[in-house]
């Protein structure tokens, strides 16, 4: 498994460097924006969100090099078998999201030290997006295994566009008074006040982890079917 993890790290190193680099850049920007203006929590909150979004956008890279029938047949004959091939994607995703959260925590600590105020912390936003990222990955990985990263990506893209379209329709015709004159961090923190939202937030980590495990079980089945459809 260690070897497979290393292989995964090597194939994903460019996106990984980009994500961490961007995260550091956003934190530096948040610090610079503080030097000029008042405390701007929105900025640091964004720097907690963007890396997770970026990981979700680039995670197809984890699959790209494995989508050949020869490789799949070879992988199935290794001691880890095809189960190990699926397992490593999930382990790596968990590890990558954890590293992103860890860097979020460090950036948050640096920002807090710079600002000199613990209320400047936005790490709970980072934790929430860590869970959301696992949730999203759990939904899309079975598609990746079944249809390959390109077609799986298309399915992901289509569903993302559908969601964006729905949001746009709501923004055009729905009641958006609650969004006006509120910054992102205040808006996210304000969500905590309602009981339903509180329960949703409290259950999100549990739901994400359970879904992540179920997704792994589904992917095991999908991988075998997907293998047959790969090109030589």
């Amino acid at each position, binding site marked *: *498994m260690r070897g497979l993890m290393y292989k995964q790290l090597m194939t994903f190193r460019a996106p990984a460097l980009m994500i961490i680099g961007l995260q550091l850049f956003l934190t530096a920007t948040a610090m610079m924006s503080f030097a000029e203006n008042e405390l701007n929590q929105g900025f640091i909150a964004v720097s907690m969100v963007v890396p997770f979004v970026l990981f979700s956008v680039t995670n197809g890279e984890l699959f790209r090099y494995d989508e050949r029938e020869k490789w799949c047949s070879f992988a199935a004959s290794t001691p880890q078998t095809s189960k190990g091939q699926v397992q490593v994607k999930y*382990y790596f995703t968990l590890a990558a999201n954890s590293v992103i*959260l*860890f860097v979020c*925590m460090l950036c948050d*600590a640096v920002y*807090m*030290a710079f600002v*000199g*105020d*613990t209320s400047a*912390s936005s*790490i*709970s936003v*980072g*934790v929430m997006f*860590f869970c959301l990222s696992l949730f999203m990955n759990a939904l899309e990985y079975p598609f990746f295994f079944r249809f390959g990263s390109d077609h799986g990506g298309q399915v992901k893209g289509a569903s993302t566009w559908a969601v964006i379209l729905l949001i746009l329709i709501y923004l055009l015709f729905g009641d958006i008074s609650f969004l006006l004159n509120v910054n992102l961090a205040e808006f996210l923190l304000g969500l905590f006040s309602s*009981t339903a939202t*509180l*329960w949703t*937030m*409290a*259950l999100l*980590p*549990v739901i994400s982890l359970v879904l992540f495990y179920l997704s792994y079980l589904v992917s095991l089945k999908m991988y075998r079917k997907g293998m047959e459809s790969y090109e030589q």
Partner: protein
Amino acid sequence: MSNKSLTIRRIVIFCVLAFLPVAIMVLLMDLYYGELIFVSEKATVGIYLSGMLGMMFPAAANLLTRLITKEGMGNNLLALNFKGHGRWYAASVLAPLGEVAVAAVLLCTIYLNGMSFGEIFPADGLSDKTAILLFQIEYSMIVFFPAFGEEWGWRGYLMPKLSEVMGKPAAVVVGGVIWGLWHAPLTISGHNFGVDYPGYPFVGILLMCVLCIADNAFLTLLTEKTGSIYPASFFHMLNNNCSMLVFLSIFGSPQAVEAANGIPTVQAFLTIMLPPTVLLGAGSFILLLKKRKPDAC
């Protein structure tokens, strides 16, 4: 150099690398704020940073000692090893919550016995409170990284080395004392007990050593049984983030919280916090000493 003396040399290097940065960091923060940080009202950032960064020094000491003594990364306990060890993972999450429950019972029976159950834990807003508790438990994952930092140092490096040198029972005690003494700069700065107690700071340091010996037994057991450092990290994470006071501040009435806050820290520690921890530690110690039956041929 014999194996034993090399191991002792590694232990000494590890301890120096783990102790020094924390002592320097706390001293610098005390100097920066002009008062002891854990009793200062203006040092909230300092407290946060010393908690987050200070706890990572043992992990850094583990890495550096391996580099300095050219030990390599063997036996690093970083594998998950979840398969077949699910019950130990479950124990790592349930044990700290169990400790909190026992501590809450002790608090109610010893200090809040003049109040009815309903007065201590009012039933209003129970749904919200439960969600907040769940939220507090799950979002403890922020503390996971610092907790991992400590565990990878103490249980991931020091304990296996001490067990090599002096056997398991003595290693648990000595390891606990070393771990407790590592907290000394924090204890002197008012962490856990404040500064207004008889025998400050020696009594605080001594009590911290006792607590660390008890916790060390359970954490060593978890690490040995699973061959992984993560269960110990989960326990440490929840232990730090979901204390009895957190539980009381969520579920308790303002009067109960006020009464609990009025108990002198050392007294509260001895009567509420220490008993469940010692109980868990004693049980773990017995399990650690229990020899495995040889496999039947």
